[in-house]
């Protein structure tokens, strides 16, 4: 009974805290930051916005980028590069995740999964979990800003930055899948003397494969949206050119890249939907 009361108390307290946080945040934004909501709709801003939208649509601009075959061609090349970057990022993240996911599951750390307990199991578990948390707490853009100081601009630093962030997320999701999986087949394999790789290949891999694929594909959807963002700080692809066109006020190019970006996102969504269906069958 007491337990239930605490349960409800915590939920109520959380909601109350969230509500208070909302009020203080909005008050802070309105008072200290001096945000004026009405000024947002001032005559001047309206003018600016209309002008900006007209520029994007290429009204009154000579030879807008999206009627030009040349710019479409270069945009297509950039889109392809961006796609390659996203694939590479997912690949790196998956590779890192696959190497660490088994020791990062609490069932493996406690020895329940493989029926063999090691003294350092929990230590490795904690270490990898901390690594996951840190790598996913830092946004892709910040990773990119750090990595661009070390690596030369191109799609590789972008892919690594995206991979670092998504490695933490994929790791967490997939480790939880391993924790929730049915351990009986694995135990039966282990007790009949299968080696570690055999246990992984025949016991764990087939069970978790559909879930893993659906997570990987889900992260790919997110990554393709974020490729533009890491491009902004100098990693290659659509984002880089987007930023350049923005700072040169080539707004019709901006519009063209935005179109390509949205097409790319919907394309990846479509492919991933199909992949998920195959994986879930």
């Amino acid at each position: 009974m007491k337990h239930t009361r605490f349960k409800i108390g915590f939920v109520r307290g959380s909601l109350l805290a969230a509500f208070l946080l909302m009020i203080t945040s909005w008050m802070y934004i309105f008072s200290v930051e001096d945000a004026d909501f009405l000024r947002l709709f001032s005559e001047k801003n309206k003018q600016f916005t209309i002008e900006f939208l007209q520029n994007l649509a290429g009204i009154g601009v000579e030879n807008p980028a999206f009627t030009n075959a040349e710019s479409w061609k270069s945009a297509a090349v950039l889109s392809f590069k961006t796609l390659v970057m996203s694939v590479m990022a997912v690949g790196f993240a998956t590779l890192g995740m696959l190497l660490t996911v088994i020791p990062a599951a609490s069932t493996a750390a406690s020895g329940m999964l493989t029926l063999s307990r090691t003294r350092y199991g929990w230590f490795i578990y904690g270490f990898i979990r901390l690594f996951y948390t840190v790598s996913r707490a830092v946004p892709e853009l910040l990773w990119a800003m750090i990595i661009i100081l070390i690596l030369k601009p191109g799609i590789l630093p972008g892919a690594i930055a995206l991979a670092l962030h998504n490695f933490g997320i994929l790791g967490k999701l997939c480790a939880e899948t391993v924790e929730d999986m049915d351990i009986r087949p694995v135990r039966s394999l282990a007790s009949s003397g299968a080696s570690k790789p055999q246990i992984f290949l025949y016991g764990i891999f087939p069970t978790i494969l559909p879930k893993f694929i659906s997570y990987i594909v889900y992260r790919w959807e997110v990554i393709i949206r974020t490729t533009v963002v890491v491009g902004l700080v100098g990693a290659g692809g659509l984002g880089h050119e987007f930023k350049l066109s923005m700072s040169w006020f080539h707004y019709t190019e901006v519009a063209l890249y935005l179109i390509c970006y949205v097409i790319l996102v919907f394309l990846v969504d479509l492919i991933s939907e199909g992949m998920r269906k195959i994986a879930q069958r």
Partner: protein
Amino acid sequence: MQHKLMYFHSKTILTIVMLLTFIASLFSVEWGGELVHAGGWTTMLQMIQGMLQPDFSLEILKLAFMSAWITLAYAVAGMTLAVLFGFVFGVLSSGILLKNRGASHYAVKNFFRGMLGFLRAIHELVWALLFVAATGISPFAAIFAIAIPYSGILGRVFSDIFTNVPEKPLQSLRANGATRLQQLLYGYLPFAAPDLISYAFYRFECAIRSSAIMSFIGLGGLGFQIQLSMQDLHYDEVWTFLIFLIGMVMIVDLWSQMLRKRLVA
């Protein structure tokens, strides 16, 4: 048996295709010695040095607290709008307020689904850039930029949650002549609320990260300080701010996990 075998095949083929695509993508990079900057390795050493000795002087700590609060405030403000719009869009696109099985039912549902897809498609930072280009720097640029894609994501998930609400209590409500709105209030909401809250809290964690990178367009917060310190090559300060960001995300993560355990399980 034959059937089963085929399932296995399609999954294996998919895995192989994914693997091959990844390997093919690697060929687009020229793996020479030209990948690293001239001073790249020294920079990395300096960065590791900074990580081992972050700058914890009072001045920097004060600044970090202040920027952490700004980041949090923007995230919370963006999430407030996102939850509101996400809820409305979720209800509309799940079609629970509409008459059953008409052509208009599907039309409305799919219209809002498509709209949610569009909201989701563009990353928050791109929205922010566009807002700043259109109206100049203002806190609302960041708040709206967070709110738009997040209401798309929340709306999509909320609508899925609404469609998965158990059917029995709803039937009983309907049999007793409840209106659509009453069904929403007494049938859908009580069952969906735990899932709605726990997902919103999960997204809140993501919103903090998004709000931190809003600095890139010139709005204050942790990301802005990180960028400044990075430009001054003060890596020890960079790590102080990064630790604040990581700490904040971890706290919210923990909070949402505790909440989820009590709500959903």
